[in-house]
């Protein structure tokens, strides 16, 4: 019903715009060097200033009244393109932007700077080309896109060097991470010290913290949209890097010049190989990942892309003396197949098939004991997105999608000398989702620009499934209902309105407002405080309701010095409902032989804060300063005696300063300084004795704070300037120093118990464990 209404509304809107005498300029914006599309290039006319940005496929379309215009295209890292156009017919212009060759004494052309920060209605967004991320100092010599976004305000991490991030008080499962549109369910390698994203394979990323456009759905806190590189359309390239604990290599090139190209990139850690000769028990850990993508321009109107990711972490240890062996492996696999079709100069479509799989497997054997555990989530998704470009920079996006989920939240077995313990039968859960959306953006008048949309989501949990009716007092199943294959168990509808309004104050400043409702049908629950590969994804069921998030945000945006300095101040308030956690009293044995959700408690949360971001994108000196103040708490009936408590990721103050100075053509120096209020913790408040052992009584949940966190990193990058022009290699050496002043930041606190209880002689001291002291690393990057 709602969809029908939207469709009619869209048609009316289209016909209203079509009545004037207008012409359209459309086409693709490409990198002149590689022939790859440029995402987010700013395409505009100067008088009056009106424009649009290229979409994820580099496509733009601008419809204007008949007239003469100065038409300009700019993108970060490229030289501006300008042309006078007399618009008296439709034009299809594919524009190629030249990469900016960096010269230290070059006078920076001010006109190329974009005022998108002030002009766009979108707020709460972080856009970062990977090239910029590559200048930031790194841990272990590995450029990491997730670590870079963690340096922006409103995005924080709890563990040292962790790739798990939290956005504006939302949990880790409330972040949608898309790699070429495919959801990535676990973005961590090596307990989070590395993210799953190989920077060589990535072109661009966008993070939405508020006002998430209606084409994105499924998570209530944020969307991180990562686009993989497409592959050079004109020449073969080999690039890579050799670091201390991992190396990577990427090959790309044309399959057919300017028509089809590919890119394959891979990396692997090799601590296991390097250390093998030195250790009696080999360090059996490594991870690897492979990204691959190919695309083919079938006709000027049609293009297909196929991309995929496969990564695994493997931990394999055998201790012969103790007859002990363990094997743990986990990882994601994604596959995306896309078809771009241009119905007309104004109507762009993209149809996508997506497969995503995450699984975790654990096995351990010691003499008589054998433990096996695995969890997984697998999705098949089909979606169709349309973009319709109207007059004067108005555009509409609409589309539909369907997803089928298979969850294996928990399958475990335990045997003792071939005698099995009953841990329940392996259970698979099934659900499907459908959604339709409509979103439009444009200028209402000279002062007001809006971006508004609505998304309608439908969700159904389907059989086979057995619902155990559970008595919470006796903790036993009193009855069960068995649902057959494809049988509906429960369904939910969710309407998600999204509204963003920008009021222009003057040519350099604006005020923006956004209000959104987001919902989420699938959830992650974790019995521990850190994100582990064992975290379970579970569907909404008749007792697990969809999570709902409301967010209001208000911001002031101002550019200084001819758009070279961008300032934003954003405040937000967020309400979260149907939050899920384990009941504090739940014991492992209560999970098995019943539905897992019988052990959950459902609560609510709220978060509010203010963020300040000052950024300089252009010139020899670039970087940003970010500050955020925030508070986030949760409240569950079965946790902390029902009292509200600060979330693990409640962080009062968070400061990041990221600066890069291009000393000369050959050298670039970067520095990072971060400060954060200490993490919350639950600490012992008293102790007593039971059976002669010490038993601890704890404070309220997260009632204590660890010491604050701060750290500085530096990096120096040397780009050797080869005198012989014939030498085609481009190389760089990156020396990074993590934690320059060797701050011993608290990773966790623990309690060291010394002495002998039976001798009545014991002391307890609090200790803090710090992970990384000053840590230099060097990486050689090459490209030829």
């Amino acid at each position, binding site marked *: 019903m709602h969809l029908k209404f939207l469709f009619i509304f869209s048609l009316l809107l289209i016909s209203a715009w079509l009545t004037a005498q207008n012409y359209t300029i459309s086409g693709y914006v490409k990198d002149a060097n590689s022939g790859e599309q440029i995402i987010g290039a700013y395409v505009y006319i100067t008088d009056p200033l009106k424009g649009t940005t290229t979409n994820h496929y580099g496509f733009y379309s601008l419809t204007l009244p008949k007239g003469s215009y100065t038409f300009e295209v700019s993108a970060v890292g490229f030289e501006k393109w300008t042309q006078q156009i007399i618009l008296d017919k439709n034009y299809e212009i594919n524009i190629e932007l030249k990469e900016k060759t960096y010269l230290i004494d070059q006078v920076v052309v001010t006109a190329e700077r974009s005022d998108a920060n002030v002009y766009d209605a979108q707020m709460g967004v972080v856009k970062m080309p990977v090239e910029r991320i590559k200048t930031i100092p790194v841990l272990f010599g590995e450029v990491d896109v997730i670590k870079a976004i963690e340096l922006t305000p409103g995005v924080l991490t709890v563990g040292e060097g962790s790739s798990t991030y939290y956005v504006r008080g939302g949990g880790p499962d409330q972040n949608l991470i898309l790699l070429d549109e495919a959801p990535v369910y676990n973005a961590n390698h090596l307990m989070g010290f590395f993210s799953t994203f190989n920077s060589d394979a990535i072109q661009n990323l966008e993070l939405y913290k508020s006002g998430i456009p209606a084409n994105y759905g499924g998570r209530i806190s944020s969307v991180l949209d990562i686009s993989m590189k497409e592959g050079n359309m004109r020449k073969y390239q080999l690039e890579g890097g050799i670091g201390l604990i991992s190396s990577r290599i990427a090959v790309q090139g044309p399959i057919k010049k300017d028509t089809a190209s590919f890119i394959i990139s891979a990396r692997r850690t090799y*601590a296991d190989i*390097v*250390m093998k000769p*030195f250790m009696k028990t080999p360090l059996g850990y490594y991870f690897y990942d492979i990204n691959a993508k190919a695309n083919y321009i079938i006709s000027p109107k049609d293009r297909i892309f196929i991309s995929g990711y496969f990564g695994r972490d493997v931990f394999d240890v055998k201790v012969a003396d103790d*007859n002990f062996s363990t094997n743990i492996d986990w990882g994601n696999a994604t596959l995306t197949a896309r078809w771009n079709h241009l119905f007309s100069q104004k109507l762009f479509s993209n149809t996508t098939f997506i497969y995503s799989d995450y699984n975790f497997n654990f096995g351990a054997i010691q003499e008589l004991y054998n433990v096996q555990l695995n969890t997984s989530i697998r999705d098949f998704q089909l979606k169709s997105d349309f973009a319709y470009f109207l007059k004067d920079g108005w555009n509409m996006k609409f589309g539909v999608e369907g997803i089928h989920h298979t969850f294996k939240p928990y399958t475990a077995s335990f045997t*003792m*000398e071939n005698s099995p*313990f*009953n841990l329940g039968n392996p259970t698979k859960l099934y659900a499907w989702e459908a959604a339709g959306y409509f979103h439009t953006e444009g200028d209402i008048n000279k002062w007001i620009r809006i971006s508004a949309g609505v998304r309608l989501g439908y969700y159904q949990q389907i059989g086979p499934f057995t619902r155990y009716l559970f008595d919470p007092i006796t903790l*036993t199943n009193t009855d069960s209902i068995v649902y057959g294959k494809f049988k509906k168990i429960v369904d939910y509808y969710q309407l998600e309105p999204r509204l963003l309004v920008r009021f222009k104050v003057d040519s350099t400043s604006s005020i923006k407002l956004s209000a959104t409702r987001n919902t989420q049908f699938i959830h992650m629950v974790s*019995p*521990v*405080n*850190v994100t582990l590969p064992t975290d379970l994804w579970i569907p909404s069921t008749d007792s697990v309701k969809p999570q709902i998030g409301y967010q209001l945000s208000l911001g002031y945006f101002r550019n200084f010095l001819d758009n070279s300095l961008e300032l934003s101040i954003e405040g937000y308030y967020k309400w979260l409902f149907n939050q899920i956690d384990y009941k504090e*009293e739940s*014991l492992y*044995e209560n999970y098995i032989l019943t539905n897992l959700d019988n052990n959950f408690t459902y609560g609510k949360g709220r978060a509010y804060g203010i963020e300040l971001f000052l950024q300089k994108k252009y010139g020899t000196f670039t970087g940003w300063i970010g500050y955020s103040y925030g508070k986030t708490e949760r409240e569950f009936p079965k946790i902390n005696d029902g009292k509200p408590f600060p979330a693990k990721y409640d962080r009062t103050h968070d400061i990041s300063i990221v600066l890069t100075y291009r000393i000369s053509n050959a050298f670039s120096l970067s520095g990072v300084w971060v400060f954060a209020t200490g993490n919350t913790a*639950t*600490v*012992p*408040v*008293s*102790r*007593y*004795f*039971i*059976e*002669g*052992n*010490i*038993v*601890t*009584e*704890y404070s309220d*949940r997260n009632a204590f704070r660890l*010491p604050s966190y701060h750290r500085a990193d530096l990096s120096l990058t040397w780009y050797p300037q080869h005198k012989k022009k014939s030498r085609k290699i481009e190389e760089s050496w990156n020396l990074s120093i993590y934690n320059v002043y060797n701050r*011993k930041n608290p990773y*966790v606190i*623990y*309690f060291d*118990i010394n*002495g*002998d*209880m*039976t001798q009545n*002689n*014991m*002391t*307890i001291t*609090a*200790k*803090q*464990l*710090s*992970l*990384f*002291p*000053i*840590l230099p*690393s060097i990486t050689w990057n090459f490209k030829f």
Partner: protein
Amino acid sequence: MRIDKLFFLILFITLSSCSKEIELDLPEPDKKYVIEGYIENDHYPVIAVTRNSSYFAPIDSTYVMNLFVLDAKVYISNGENEVECFLSTNNLINGAWPYLYYTTNQMVGELDKIYSIKVIIGSDTITGSDTMPSQVFLDSLWCEPIKDNDTLKDLWISYIDPPEKNFYRFFTKRQSRDNYFVPSALFVLDDIYFNNQFFKVNLIRGIENIYSDSTYQDPELGKYKVGDTVIVKTANMTRQHYNFWRTAEQEIYIGSSPFINPVRIRHTVKGGLGVFGCYASTYDTIVIN
């Protein structure tokens, strides 16, 4: 410098001096009383009353003795009679926990009866109640050899779990070596894994105290020495009694891990911390050979 040497250098830097002592400014805890009480079929009750203390207070013998409350009024009832308990010092002689406890010789545990206690300390009153369940009998117990070791053995037990809900604790006592029945560590068991089925398990010998150097230096850790006579006590419990021991044991063994939310101990007494519960026990003896 070769890359592997560099790697080792960095690994060394990483792993050295990662941990340091810190001062935590914790408030003085609220004063609470702790009950550790049980009654077993055919045995007199044992009810220890102690106090909590600040988490960092250093522990010496005076400290531990001072935790025991000596002036409590302790009453136990079997639903028919209520008797007042007296303070026993029997355990002080052999150093067994609890060093001081309240008991009575006017009441022994009987199957299927409901027992309740009332402990009065000044203006505080603590109460608790539990039901004595049925006994469960072992089918057999036997020893299994350990690879490359002639002097130590593994001890196994087996039985058929009755159809009704059961919760178990197992204890062992090596005659003339142990002063009391030592609970088998991590063997507080819910029969959910083997309800109404034949069940066998390797009964790992319990440790008297996890904060004792002698525990970890003991070459017999978890095993049984050939020649020893071992008495196995199999105790059946109610769910609430089980919940206390299950959560308390989890807290004692893994509670201080910084990565997990602390265990919420399921105290069974009202007005204080701790437990009062019934054990329906059976005893079996084996000579390790």
